[in-house]
Protein backbone atom coordinates (compact mmCIF):
# COMPACT_ATOMS: atom_id res chain seq x y z
CA UNK A 1 0.00 0.00 0.00
CA UNK A 2 2.82 2.36 0.90
CA UNK A 3 4.52 1.59 -2.38
CA UNK A 4 1.27 2.28 -4.21
CA UNK A 5 0.89 5.67 -2.50
CA UNK A 6 4.52 6.49 -3.27
CA UNK A 7 3.99 5.64 -6.95
CA UNK A 8 0.89 7.83 -7.17
CA UNK A 9 2.73 10.79 -5.61
CA UNK A 10 5.64 10.21 -7.98
CA UNK A 11 3.27 10.09 -10.95
CA UNK A 12 1.58 13.29 -9.80
CA UNK A 13 4.93 15.12 -9.45
CA UNK A 14 6.10 13.84 -12.82
CA UNK A 15 2.83 14.91 -14.44
CA UNK A 16 2.99 18.41 -12.92
CA UNK A 17 6.61 18.85 -14.01
CA UNK A 18 5.77 17.63 -17.50
CA UNK A 19 2.80 19.98 -17.78
CA UNK A 20 4.97 22.94 -16.65
CA UNK A 21 7.56 22.01 -19.24
CA UNK A 22 4.92 21.86 -21.99
CA UNK A 23 3.54 25.21 -20.90
CA UNK A 24 7.01 26.78 -20.96
CA UNK A 25 7.67 25.33 -24.40
CA UNK A 26 4.42 26.77 -25.73
CA UNK A 27 5.08 30.08 -24.03
CA UNK A 28 8.55 30.31 -25.62
CA UNK A 29 7.24 29.29 -29.03
CA UNK A 30 4.54 31.96 -28.99
CA UNK A 31 6.75 34.72 -27.60
CA UNK A 32 9.39 33.98 -30.27
CA UNK A 33 6.75 34.48 -32.94
CA UNK A 34 5.39 37.74 -31.50
CA UNK A 35 7.08 40.97 -32.52
CA UNK A 36 8.12 43.41 -29.82
CA UNK A 37 6.42 46.44 -31.33
CA UNK A 38 8.54 49.04 -29.60
CA UNK A 39 11.91 47.32 -30.17
CA UNK A 40 14.08 47.18 -33.26
CA UNK A 41 13.87 43.77 -34.87
CA UNK A 42 13.37 41.84 -31.65
CA UNK A 43 10.77 39.31 -30.68
CA UNK A 44 8.95 39.47 -27.36
CA UNK A 45 11.05 36.47 -26.29
CA UNK A 46 14.33 38.34 -26.88
CA UNK A 47 13.30 41.66 -25.39
CA UNK A 48 13.24 42.92 -21.83
CA UNK A 49 11.27 46.07 -22.58
CA UNK A 50 8.19 46.92 -20.52
CA UNK A 51 6.02 46.03 -23.50
CA UNK A 52 7.66 42.60 -23.90
CA UNK A 53 7.55 41.81 -20.18
CA UNK A 54 3.83 42.61 -19.99
CA UNK A 55 3.22 40.70 -23.21
CA UNK A 56 4.92 37.60 -21.75
CA UNK A 57 2.68 37.85 -18.69
CA UNK A 58 -0.38 38.17 -20.92
CA UNK A 59 0.61 35.12 -23.00
CA UNK A 60 1.11 33.18 -19.77
CA UNK A 61 -2.31 34.28 -18.54
CA UNK A 62 -3.98 33.31 -21.82
CA UNK A 63 -2.37 29.85 -21.71
CA UNK A 64 -3.66 29.43 -18.15
CA UNK A 65 -7.12 30.46 -19.33
CA UNK A 66 -6.99 27.61 -21.85
CA UNK A 67 -6.29 29.54 -25.05
CA UNK A 68 -4.38 27.57 -27.69
CA UNK A 69 -1.57 28.98 -29.83
CA UNK A 70 -3.81 30.07 -32.70
CA UNK A 71 -6.34 31.70 -30.37
CA UNK A 72 -3.57 33.75 -28.76
CA UNK A 73 -2.31 34.95 -32.16
CA UNK A 74 -5.88 35.78 -33.20
CA UNK A 75 -6.44 37.74 -30.00
CA UNK A 76 -3.25 39.75 -30.45
CA UNK A 77 -3.90 40.33 -34.17
CA UNK A 78 -7.28 41.78 -33.27
CA UNK A 79 -5.62 44.23 -30.88
CA UNK A 80 -2.45 45.11 -32.79
CA UNK A 81 -3.01 44.01 -36.38
CA UNK A 82 -1.29 41.25 -38.36
CA UNK A 83 2.07 43.02 -38.02
CA UNK A 84 2.48 41.65 -34.50
CA UNK A 85 2.96 38.06 -35.68
CA UNK A 86 6.30 37.24 -37.30
CA UNK A 87 4.90 34.42 -39.37
CA UNK A 88 2.50 36.04 -41.81
CA UNK A 89 -0.41 33.92 -42.98
CA UNK A 90 -1.20 33.39 -46.65
CA UNK A 91 -3.75 35.99 -47.77
CA UNK A 92 -4.30 38.53 -50.53
CA UNK A 93 -1.91 40.99 -48.90
CA UNK A 94 0.92 38.51 -48.39
CA UNK A 95 0.64 36.20 -51.41
CA UNK A 96 3.57 37.92 -53.23
CA UNK A 97 5.73 37.37 -50.16
CA UNK A 98 4.97 33.64 -50.23
CA UNK A 99 4.91 33.04 -53.98
CA UNK A 100 7.80 35.20 -55.17
CA UNK A 101 10.59 32.97 -53.75
CA UNK A 102 8.98 29.89 -55.32
CA UNK A 103 8.61 31.73 -58.62
CA UNK A 104 12.26 32.85 -58.51
CA UNK A 105 13.36 29.35 -57.61
CA UNK A 106 11.42 27.85 -60.53
CA UNK A 107 12.68 30.50 -62.97
CA UNK A 108 16.26 29.83 -61.88
CA UNK A 109 15.65 26.10 -62.28
CA UNK A 110 14.30 26.57 -65.79
CA UNK A 111 17.29 28.75 -66.77
CA UNK A 112 19.77 26.20 -65.41
CA UNK A 113 17.86 23.32 -67.04
CA UNK A 114 17.81 25.09 -70.42
CA UNK A 115 21.53 25.88 -70.24
CA UNK A 116 22.35 22.27 -69.39
CA UNK A 117 20.31 21.03 -72.34
CA UNK A 118 21.97 23.53 -74.68
CA UNK A 119 25.42 22.37 -73.47
CA UNK A 120 24.53 18.74 -74.17
Amino acid at each position, binding site marked *: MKLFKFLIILLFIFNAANSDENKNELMNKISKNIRCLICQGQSVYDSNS*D*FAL*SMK*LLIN*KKIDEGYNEKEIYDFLE*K*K*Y*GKWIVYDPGFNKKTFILWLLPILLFLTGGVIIFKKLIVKK
Partner: protein
Amino acid sequence: MKNKFVLPLWIIFFGFCFIVLFNSLKNSNIYIPEENFETELTNFNSEDFFSGKRISSKDVFVGSDYYILNIWASWCAPCREEHPKLMELSKNSSIKIIGLNYKDNLKNAKKFINNFGNPYSSILLDHDGIISIELGAYGIPETFIINKKNKIIKKFRGVLNTKRIKEINLILK
Protein backbone atom coordinates in the same frame (compact mmCIF):
# COMPACT_ATOMS: atom_id res chain seq x y z
CA MET B 1 28.40 50.16 -77.63
CA LYS B 2 27.85 47.90 -74.64
CA ASN B 3 30.49 49.68 -72.54
CA LYS B 4 28.86 53.01 -73.26
CA PHE B 5 25.83 52.05 -71.15
CA VAL B 6 27.52 50.16 -68.36
CA LEU B 7 28.95 53.16 -66.49
CA PRO B 8 25.72 55.26 -66.53
CA LEU B 9 23.74 52.22 -65.42
CA TRP B 10 26.09 51.67 -62.47
CA ILE B 11 25.86 55.36 -61.59
CA ILE B 12 22.04 55.22 -61.69
CA PHE B 13 22.04 52.04 -59.60
CA PHE B 14 24.37 53.44 -56.91
CA GLY B 15 22.55 56.78 -56.98
CA PHE B 16 19.25 55.00 -56.38
CA CYS B 17 20.71 52.96 -53.51
CA PHE B 18 22.22 56.12 -51.98
CA ILE B 19 18.91 58.00 -52.11
CA VAL B 20 16.95 55.08 -50.60
CA LEU B 21 19.46 54.56 -47.78
CA PHE B 22 19.91 58.28 -47.11
CA ASN B 23 16.16 58.83 -46.86
CA SER B 24 15.73 55.86 -44.55
CA LEU B 25 18.26 57.42 -42.16
CA LYS B 26 15.74 60.15 -41.44
CA ASN B 27 12.88 57.77 -40.79
CA SER B 28 12.15 56.21 -37.44
CA ASN B 29 13.41 52.65 -37.13
CA ILE B 30 10.28 51.60 -35.31
CA TYR B 31 7.48 50.85 -37.68
CA ILE B 32 3.98 51.25 -36.37
CA PRO B 33 1.35 50.13 -38.85
CA GLU B 34 -1.65 52.34 -39.49
CA GLU B 35 -4.63 51.22 -37.48
CA ASN B 36 -7.89 52.09 -39.09
CA PHE B 37 -9.90 49.40 -37.45
CA GLU B 38 -12.25 49.79 -34.53
CA THR B 39 -11.63 47.30 -31.79
CA GLU B 40 -13.90 46.03 -29.10
CA LEU B 41 -12.98 47.15 -25.60
CA THR B 42 -11.92 44.00 -23.77
CA ASN B 43 -13.67 43.61 -20.43
CA PHE B 44 -11.22 43.46 -17.59
CA ASN B 45 -11.12 43.40 -13.83
CA SER B 46 -8.98 45.78 -11.89
CA GLU B 47 -8.64 47.63 -8.60
CA ASP B 48 -9.97 51.07 -7.83
CA PHE B 49 -7.16 53.59 -7.32
CA PHE B 50 -8.60 55.18 -4.19
CA SER B 51 -10.54 52.42 -2.44
CA GLY B 52 -8.50 49.41 -3.60
CA LYS B 53 -11.75 47.53 -4.24
CA ARG B 54 -12.02 45.04 -7.11
CA ILE B 55 -13.86 46.63 -9.98
CA SER B 56 -14.98 45.47 -13.40
CA SER B 57 -14.59 47.61 -16.52
CA LYS B 58 -18.28 46.96 -17.22
CA ASP B 59 -19.13 49.06 -14.15
CA VAL B 60 -16.87 51.90 -15.23
CA PHE B 61 -17.67 52.29 -18.91
CA VAL B 62 -21.36 53.09 -18.43
CA GLY B 63 -23.54 56.17 -18.62
CA SER B 64 -21.73 58.26 -21.20
CA ASP B 65 -21.68 58.63 -24.99
CA TYR B 66 -17.91 58.80 -25.09
CA TYR B 67 -15.13 57.77 -22.76
CA ILE B 68 -11.51 58.78 -22.83
CA LEU B 69 -9.20 56.14 -21.45
CA ASN B 70 -5.83 57.55 -20.53
CA ILE B 71 -2.93 55.29 -19.59
CA TRP B 72 -0.54 57.12 -17.29
CA ALA B 73 2.04 56.77 -14.52
CA SER B 74 3.68 59.15 -12.09
CA TRP B 75 7.16 58.16 -13.35
CA CYS B 76 6.28 59.06 -16.94
CA ALA B 77 7.50 62.57 -17.82
CA PRO B 78 5.31 62.95 -20.94
CA CYS B 79 2.29 62.19 -18.74
CA ARG B 80 3.04 65.33 -16.72
CA GLU B 81 3.22 67.27 -19.94
CA GLU B 82 -0.24 66.16 -21.09
CA HIS B 83 -1.92 66.38 -17.68
CA PRO B 84 -3.06 70.04 -18.04
CA LYS B 85 -4.70 69.06 -21.35
CA LEU B 86 -6.62 66.31 -19.58
CA MET B 87 -7.65 68.77 -16.85
CA GLU B 88 -9.00 71.01 -19.61
CA LEU B 89 -10.87 68.11 -21.21
CA SER B 90 -12.39 67.11 -17.88
CA LYS B 91 -14.39 70.38 -17.87
CA ASN B 92 -16.52 68.85 -20.63
CA SER B 93 -19.24 67.07 -18.66
CA SER B 94 -20.44 65.00 -21.63
CA ILE B 95 -17.38 62.77 -21.47
CA LYS B 96 -15.99 60.49 -18.87
CA ILE B 97 -12.22 60.38 -18.53
CA ILE B 98 -10.96 57.13 -17.09
CA GLY B 99 -7.38 56.72 -16.00
CA LEU B 100 -5.41 53.51 -16.09
CA ASN B 101 -2.44 53.77 -13.78
CA TYR B 102 0.36 51.72 -15.38
CA LYS B 103 3.01 49.84 -13.36
CA ASP B 104 3.22 52.56 -10.77
CA ASN B 105 3.98 53.02 -7.12
CA LEU B 106 0.61 53.84 -5.57
CA LYS B 107 2.07 56.38 -3.14
CA ASN B 108 3.79 58.29 -5.94
CA ALA B 109 0.70 58.08 -8.13
CA LYS B 110 -1.48 59.59 -5.37
CA LYS B 111 1.08 62.35 -4.87
CA PHE B 112 0.94 63.03 -8.62
CA ILE B 113 -2.85 63.37 -8.54
CA ASN B 114 -2.72 65.60 -5.43
CA ASN B 115 -0.13 67.88 -7.00
CA PHE B 116 -1.47 68.17 -10.54
CA GLY B 117 -5.22 67.60 -10.07
CA ASN B 118 -7.54 64.76 -10.90
CA PRO B 119 -9.13 64.88 -14.34
CA TYR B 120 -10.40 61.30 -14.08
CA SER B 121 -13.88 60.18 -13.09
CA SER B 122 -12.33 56.82 -12.12
CA ILE B 123 -8.82 55.51 -11.96
CA LEU B 124 -8.05 51.82 -12.32
CA LEU B 125 -4.81 50.09 -11.51
CA ASP B 126 -2.71 48.07 -13.94
CA HIS B 127 0.01 46.65 -11.70
CA ASP B 128 1.79 44.43 -14.23
CA GLY B 129 0.79 46.05 -17.54
CA ILE B 130 -1.39 43.13 -18.67
CA ILE B 131 -4.56 45.24 -18.92
CA SER B 132 -2.81 47.79 -21.15
CA ILE B 133 -1.54 45.05 -23.44
CA GLU B 134 -5.01 43.47 -23.54
CA LEU B 135 -6.35 46.84 -24.64
CA GLY B 136 -3.78 47.09 -27.41
CA ALA B 137 -1.45 49.70 -25.91
CA TYR B 138 2.24 50.09 -26.84
CA GLY B 139 3.43 52.13 -23.88
CA ILE B 140 2.57 55.29 -22.01
CA PRO B 141 1.12 57.83 -22.28
CA GLU B 142 -1.60 56.53 -24.50
CA THR B 143 -5.17 57.68 -24.91
CA PHE B 144 -8.12 55.85 -26.39
CA ILE B 145 -11.50 57.24 -27.33
CA ILE B 146 -14.28 54.76 -26.71
CA ASN B 147 -17.85 55.15 -27.86
CA LYS B 148 -21.00 54.09 -26.04
CA LYS B 149 -20.97 50.71 -27.85
CA ASN B 150 -17.68 50.10 -26.03
CA LYS B 151 -15.61 50.23 -29.20
CA ILE B 152 -12.22 51.91 -29.30
CA ILE B 153 -12.64 54.36 -32.16
CA LYS B 154 -9.34 56.23 -31.89
CA LYS B 155 -5.95 55.67 -30.32
CA PHE B 156 -3.39 58.34 -29.60
CA ARG B 157 0.07 57.03 -28.88
CA GLY B 158 2.21 59.52 -26.98
CA VAL B 159 1.45 62.93 -25.53
CA LEU B 160 -1.87 64.68 -26.07
CA ASN B 161 -0.94 67.95 -27.74
CA THR B 162 -3.15 70.84 -28.83
CA LYS B 163 -3.67 69.30 -32.28
CA ARG B 164 -4.83 66.03 -30.76
CA ILE B 165 -7.13 67.80 -28.31
CA LYS B 166 -8.75 69.56 -31.28
CA GLU B 167 -9.16 66.16 -32.96
CA ILE B 168 -10.77 64.76 -29.81
CA ASN B 169 -13.15 67.73 -29.59
CA LEU B 170 -14.14 67.18 -33.22
CA ILE B 171 -14.95 63.52 -32.52
CA LEU B 172 -16.92 64.44 -29.40
CA LYS B 173 -19.06 67.04 -31.23
